[in-house]
């Protein structure tokens, strides 16, 4: 039997209803109705809270699908948490509510499909998971499958399966080879489980976490590197919570690893006169706090690096977070267009990000625009500059 978890009552009641989050929310920006804003959702929670500090099941059922749609129409970008007047951990609250809604079976159809897909196929695309390594053949990358290594490269579902961003995996592996890193891919990588955590399917996510940790630890690797901020969040922050223990390896995002290589002199990147701007992925920048490292890498490439409107901790979502693409694709597209517009208005040649989902979304948006800019991942940029791609 599922017991509705307790919410942090102080947090729910501490909400000052000041509306600082309303103004920043990328979803509210387009929908405009108070109930879709973080402030509106916090007020709704207060109203459906039972005396035992758990959400009232009857009230949830009564509000049903409209309630669920409000909580799943969210990019999980964390801007609401960032600007919160009383420093409430809103992302934690949204996660818990999604967990409750999932367990009570009040989630959008697309979320059920997605979680079933991941459960069955161990990836988000319903592909045969043995084809996860097909990108190696498609890109011609030189990769390693070792029984033991210092570093594991955790590729992630999107980079593995999506043709548009498989070049990120090629870039990361070629850079690891270039610096003579002792590294390997996992022989049987499963989805990191982050999409399931976002769906509220915590128990199912735990199964994936257990498998991936076992696989990584079997290689004896001290470090795991991933180019996907979603996988990074899962491996670094969600796995310890899901499994109740800290895995024995250090988790790094590819931008962190590249920054270390560059500052230690292990990787020398020739300077170029290319003009660049950088989109901070929400899960990497604001949520994980990795803001400086990508800039260290970018500044090694060019002196003409332009910050866009809203960057660093203030960066605005590209629309693809929080499973919004599955729940409300047209809204996700609108958010992507808005962000792309901000990035393109810097008048640079190339838009760089450090996330396969952001790169994919922004590149897709660029194709719908006249004179769309080139959008690439940070690792691709460096691999190109070094002459590996």
């Amino acid at each position, binding site marked *: 039997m599922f017991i509705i978890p307790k919410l942090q009552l*102080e947090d729910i009641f501490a909400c000052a209803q*000041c*509306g*600082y989050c309303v103004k920043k929310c990328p979803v509210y920006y387009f929908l405009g109705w*108070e109930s879709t804003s973080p402030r509106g959702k916090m007020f709704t929670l207060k109203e459906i809270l039972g005396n035992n500090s758990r959400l009232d099941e009857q009230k949830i059922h009564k509000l049903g699908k409209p309630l669920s749609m409000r909580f799943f129409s969210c990019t999980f970008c964390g801007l609401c948490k960032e600007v919160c007047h*009383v420093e409430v951990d809103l992302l934690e609250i949204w996660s818990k509510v999604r967990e409750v809604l999932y367990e009570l079976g009040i989630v959008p159809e697309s979320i059920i499909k997605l979680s079933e897909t991941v459960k069955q196929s161990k990836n988000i695309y319903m592909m045969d998971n043995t084809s996860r390594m097909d990108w190696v053949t498609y890109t011609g990358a030189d990769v390693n499958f070792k029984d033991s290594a210092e570093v594991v490269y955790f590729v992630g579902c999107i980079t593995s399966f999506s043709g548009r961003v498989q070049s990120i995996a090629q870039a990361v592996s070629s850079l690891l080879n270039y610096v003579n890193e002792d590294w390997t891919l996992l022989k049987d990588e499963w989805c990191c489980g982050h999409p399931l955590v976002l769906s509220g399917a915590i128990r199912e996510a735990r199964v994936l976490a257990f498998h991936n940790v076992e696989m990584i630890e079997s290689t004896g690797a001290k470090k795991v590197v991933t180019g996907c901020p979603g996988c990074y969040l899962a491996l670094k922050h969600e796995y310890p919570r899901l499994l109740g223990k800290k895995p024995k390896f250090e988790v790094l995002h590819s931008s962190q690893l590249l920054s270390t290589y560059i500052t230690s002199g292990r990787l020398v990147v020739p300077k170029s006169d290319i003009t660049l701007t950088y989109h901070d992925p929400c899960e990497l920048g604001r949520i994980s706090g990795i803001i400086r490292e990508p800039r260290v890498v970018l500044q090694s490439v060019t002196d003409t690096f332009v910050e866009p409107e809203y960057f660093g901790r203030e960066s605005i979502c590209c629309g693809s977070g929080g499973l919004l693409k599955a729940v409300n694709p047209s809204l996700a597209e609108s958010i992507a267009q808005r962000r792309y517009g901000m990035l393109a208005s810097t008048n640079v040649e190339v838009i760089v990000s450090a996330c396969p989902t952001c790169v994919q979304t922004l590149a897709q948006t660029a194709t719908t625009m006249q004179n769309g800019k080139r959008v690439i991942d940070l690792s691709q940029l460096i691999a190109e500059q070094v002459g590996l791609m």
Partner: protein
Amino acid sequence: MTTSDKFLSELINRLGQEYVSVDSLEKLVYAHDFAALPKFVKLLFNTTPDVIVRPKATEHVTEIMKLANEYKIPVIPRGSATWGFGGTVPVKGGIILDLTGLNRIIHLDEKNGLLTVECGVVWEDVIRFLRKTCWELPTYPSSALSSTVGGWAATGGIGYGSLKYGPFVKNVVKVTAVLPDGRVIVVDDNSDPSLSQLFGSEGILCVFTELTLKMIPKNEAEMPFMANFSNFANALMAAQEVLRLTRPHSLVLRTFGFVRTKDYVESDAYFFGCFNDNKRDVYEQYLKLDSIVNRYRGYLVPEDEARREWEERFYTLRIKKWGPSILGNEFIIPVHKILDMVRYCWQLGNQAHLDVEVEVIFISKDEALMFPLFLCDERKPIRYLMSAAIAKKVLDVAIKVGGRPYGYGLWNFPFMEIAEPEKKGELERMKSTLDPQNLLNPGKTIGAEVTLGLPLPGKLYSTFMDGVWVLRKVI
């Protein structure tokens, strides 16, 4: 088809489905404002709106007002709902007019420094927009990260910069307003009604839709400052001298009182603010500040710390998390009465066993806006209700010492008769002329109505709150 169905279908026909909502979740979240309502309020007032409308143009507002007149349905204008006096809370259902969709920055007259915006523009967007120009805002509210330009015009209009440049009303050239009958008028200082008559009328006389604001040329230098003192009296005396000898953009004094022992301990206090001028003047003023702070045994914190405090100026409610609820009030009082009022707030806090924070924003050498906050817990409904009377007790004394409420709305309406009888008389006269059907934000500011349209006498309300305060002691 019932009248309300007919009204709704006509509303949708005229505006379009995307601007109208009758969704039950939407009604739930539009039934309140910034303040947490004690449960009993819902017995007195029908706070749930019948419909919420998000107009996108002045013409939409006109259509809504005309239709509301035809069907005699109340209209409650709403900006970002960041005002805590119940001004945007319906008292007998009706239409919530969510004006945040009117959010365009229309035009900047670069030559004369005049900026025209729609009413739903958030202050932060104006500040951000002006960064790319050679102009800046003279004054803006402490809730600038979410509050709207129109919302501030309808309410107090006192905030950061008001000390140096005057209140908001002095920094507006003209406004476009929709009257309760749907007519659109352009208002300035010489029109009838005039700008000062409609400003701060709390949404009972008109809906502002466009405003033209005066800007100031960007100052060459900006120097935030912050000084700590070991007691409030010294901080206050130093602040008064700062007001006398320098020209700060803003000056804010804060103090805390905690129920840690049986009696209140005289707490420490600090003030912060900012100088803005040419480099030389800013430097000279800072030197004067330094000597004042030293004289009153204060300590001027390092510049980076002061800058951080200044950047945090919009986060005045950080303390709420310790509550997790707050009760309070806002009023304007003579500067020479600040010390007495702060001590009275501490005394009240002590009686009710509530921690207190007091913030004072100076608006001139003689007057200040005081904002005492009492930390409490709305999860204990009886105690919360009993403590709610503290907001009234504070105001009683503030008025006695020559102060007046910063706003009236729903919760402070009984005080207008006592604090500003002339203003009340004028508002009543204008209300009966402009809104004879009493449709625009009824039951606020000049008088309240309970659910069935019965008037709620101010004295009855005041007596009830006094009774609650006495009952608190008994319980």
